[in-house]
């Protein structure tokens, strides 16, 4: 194992470790643009140049492997001058439009300029190379080639991570610019990661662009509920409004985040978000809606059924189980979800589009119940007269409901979710507004944290069920999510 000395501190590192990562282990930050830990080394930005004793020239820390006895200096006058020069080169043709740039506040050029340069421009303003400033690239991104520093992270991301290779550096010298290859659109499922890894404001998200200054954003750890992979996320929000979702890199699941996962917050803030109940097609206040739903359930007490949902948290599934067992005292309930799981595209997106089949199964293990097949047969045969279910889970029994004619009482967040023919719909709080536990396809338990308050009157699902139980069957007296878990 080679021993390397960086700025006077000695460290033993694994063979193949680069100077840049060795320095990182010692807490020494070496500035970089093109280097990214998950992409190949391209060594083009020249920002990470350091002095290596006995080497005739400055070396790029990102590509130089630590060798035994190597002595590196990262803050000598020579290194500082090189950084200042590289920054100057990067900035001469940069438009300096920070006041209208979304990257401002998290920009590699701004940060390193303050840290390593602060020099006055020696370039004649009028001589700048002009490039295309607003090029829509695919469904999620806009490219500003004037801001681009040609670090090629985006090009490498598309060729190495998504393996779709849409992007290329066109032309040469300072006429170079990033573009999609002829006839290609930048429409892979991970394109928004490009806006994250772009160290400057060249790539911006069409969704996030011009919405919010980054320094106003508060960051709350989150979990993506877009599929069974259950990626860790970071939710960026301000004053109760979510503006973007970013990946929270971790060794278990994800460095990146897929585009659909990033857009998941849209439904929670959509215009058709339900704040009231719906009976047939008419909006109605929550209390009368609950009473109406309860009386329809009571009509068929013994023939009522409850279906759990892989889209709901462990707590909310537990509340549904309690409702069936202790409220309705029916044996007709199922928490049996066992779809095929595993990474579908070799990157992040799971074969199972629901985030919590494993969590529902956990409830099944504790509360028992019918298999999914048994319940569907009963629904199809008409034996079940009323079914209580979450909207997307109810969709799994679409044909059976049609055949058996059971009355459907659903829980839904958005009006667009309501299955055709639902009798009563009850709104509930999204997991951006209430905590919930989810178990991903690897069996990892992950908890959401609320980032925003739900609309007035909209309660977490376990609380809605608690209320429903007060009107129908026996009251469950659910005061908290923990109460739901306790009973099963």
């Amino acid at each position, binding site marked *: 194992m080679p021993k390397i000395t960086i700025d006077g501190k000695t460290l033993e590192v694994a063979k193949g470790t680069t100077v840049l990562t060795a320095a990182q282990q010692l807490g020494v930050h070496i500035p970089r643009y093109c280097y990214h830990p998950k992409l190949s*080394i*391209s*060594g*083009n*930005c*020249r*920002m990470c*140049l350091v002095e290596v004793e006995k080497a*005739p*020239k*400055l070396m*790029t820390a990102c*590509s130089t492997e630590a060798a035994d006895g190597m002595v590196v200096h990262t803050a000598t006058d020579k290194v500082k001058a*090189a950084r200042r*020069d*590289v920054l*100057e*080169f*990067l900035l*001469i*043709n940069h438009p300096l439009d920070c006041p209208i740039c979304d990257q401002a506040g998290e920009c590699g050029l701004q940060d390193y300029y303050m840290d390593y340069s602060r020099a006055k421009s*020696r*370039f*004649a303003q009028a*001589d700048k*190379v002009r490039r295309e400033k607003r090029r829509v690239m695919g469904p999620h991104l806009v490219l500003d080639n004037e801001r681009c*520093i*040609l670090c090629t992270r985006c090009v490498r991301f598309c060729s190495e991570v998504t393996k779709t290779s849409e992007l*290329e*550096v066109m*032309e*040469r*010298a*300072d*006429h*170079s610019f990033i573009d999609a290859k002829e006839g290609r659109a930048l429409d892979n499922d991970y394109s928004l990661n490009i806006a994250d890894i772009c160290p400057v404001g060249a790539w911006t998200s069409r969704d996030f662009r011009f919405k919010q200054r980054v320094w106003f954003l508060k960051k709350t750890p989150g979990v993506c509920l877009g599929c069974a992979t259950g990626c860790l996320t970071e939710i960026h929000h301000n004053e109760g409004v979510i503006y973007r979702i970013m990946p929270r890199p971790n060794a278990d699941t994800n460095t990146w985040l897929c585009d659909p996962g990033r857009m998941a917050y849209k439904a929670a803030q959509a215009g058709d978000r339900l704040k009231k109940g719906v009976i047939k097609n008419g909006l109605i206040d929550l209390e009368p809606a609950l009473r109406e739903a309860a009386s329809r359930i009571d009509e068929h007490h013994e023939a009522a059924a409850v279906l759990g949902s892989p889209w709901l948290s462990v707590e909310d599934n537990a509340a549904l189980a309690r409702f069936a067992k202790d409220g309705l005292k029916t044996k007709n309930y199922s928490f049996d979800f066992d779809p095929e799981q595993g990474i579908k595209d070799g990157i992040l997106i799971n074969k199972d589009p629901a985030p919590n089949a494993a969590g529902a199964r956990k409830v099944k293990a504790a509360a028992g119940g019918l298999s999914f097949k048994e319940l569907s047969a009963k629904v199809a045969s008409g034996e079940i007269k009323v079914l209580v279910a979450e909207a997307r889970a109810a969709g799994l029994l679409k044909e059976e409901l049609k055949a058996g004619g059971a009355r459907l009482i659903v829980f839904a967040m958005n009006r667009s979710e309501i299955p055709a023919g639902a009798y009563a719909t009850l709104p509930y709080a999204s997991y951006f507004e209430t905590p919930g536990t989810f178990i991903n396809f690897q069996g990892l338990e992950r908890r959401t944290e609320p980032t925003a308050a739900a609309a007035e009157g909209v309660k977490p699902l376990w609380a809605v069920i608690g209320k429903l139980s007060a009107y129908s069957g026996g009251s469950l007296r659910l005061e908290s999510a923990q109460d739901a878990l306790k009973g099963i």
Partner: protein
Amino acid sequence: MENILLKDKVAGLDGYFAAGGYKPLKKALGMTPADLIEEVKKSGLRGRGGAGFPTGLKWSFIPKDGQGPRYIVCNADEGEPGTFKDREVILKNPHALIEGMAIAGYAIGASRGYIYIRGEFAAEARLLEEAIADARGRGLIGANLLGSGFDFELSVHRGAGAYICGEETALLESLEGFKGQPRLKPPFPAVKGLFASPTVINNVETLAAVPTIIEKGGAWYAAIGTPKSAGTKLFCVSGPVNKPGVYELPLGVAFRELLEKHCGGLKEGKKLKAVIPGGSSVPVLTAAEAMAVALDYEALAAAGSMLGSGAVIIIDETQCMVKLLQVLARFYHHESCGQCTPCREGCGWIEKILDRLEEGRGSAADIDLLCSVADGMKGRTICPLADAMAMPVLSFVKKFRAEFEAHAAGRCCPPEPAGKH
């Protein structure tokens, strides 16, 4: 002295045979690769493309064991401004190159060779292809060379006109079908070159010297030239001299001899101002420096310049150094691959400053800025293109500062007629 590279009547295969051609290949195939490399080391032959790296040593870097193919690649991109020597070898002595490649291939265990030729050399590429076909017809290229059991295939690949593809790793990228951009090193081509396999890349002039070295022995070749700069070198002389052209002379020849004896001196009425001795990338010499220098690797380095590709550009008193540097800057700006920040941005910046100075819009501060930008580029990029821009800038300003100052003060040269460039 008899020419090694540029001979008469050897362009065709029969003429080449008559002059003893392909005997060295037969001799080489009877030797062990290790002995062959030793012989080339002994000759003191150094890379003629510009860097002057010892050829035998380069060949010895190819891993001795290990699986998979190896490649020998000839750099015939000849893009360095002022250089036109490889073309001459291809036109007059193509079989020396082909034979040299077969020998080099055998020495490093490469059964496949490529000649990457400058895109503009369409006729030369055709000529090489014909020569290879002729050689193949006689069993000198192909399977089982001369019954030795060694197979050697050779093909010609035309570039698409980028200067940067003369840099060996950009050449490899281009040969593989990618955009020509230099690779980050290490790994070096000897370990991971063409198609990720061990590869040697040699210049045309280097490879063409190999058959003679094998035939006459390394010691014979080493006796030509100076102790550290052995052999003959092709000097391409351009500019206002009476007989511009390519001259094969022993290394160490005095510049004065090249100019006065071989090139017939400057044209009447012209007075020598400066010399770029090794292609446009190397530092310029003043007339006095040039007249005192010998043309070999060491002497030119001692004089603060380089032998480079051996392209000797003669500059007379009527030429404007600012204008000349502007032409060079336009070239390097155009040819920078755009990969590394300092070169991508610096070349364009330098051209803009020179445009200002040349057109009388500049200031005295621009002269220092020019040097400062060049300093910021030097030694900080993946390949030497940034240095190739920086070195002329720094040397032109250092040695001819008065001309730059005159431009800054508004005393510019008369503008050239429109449409000149």
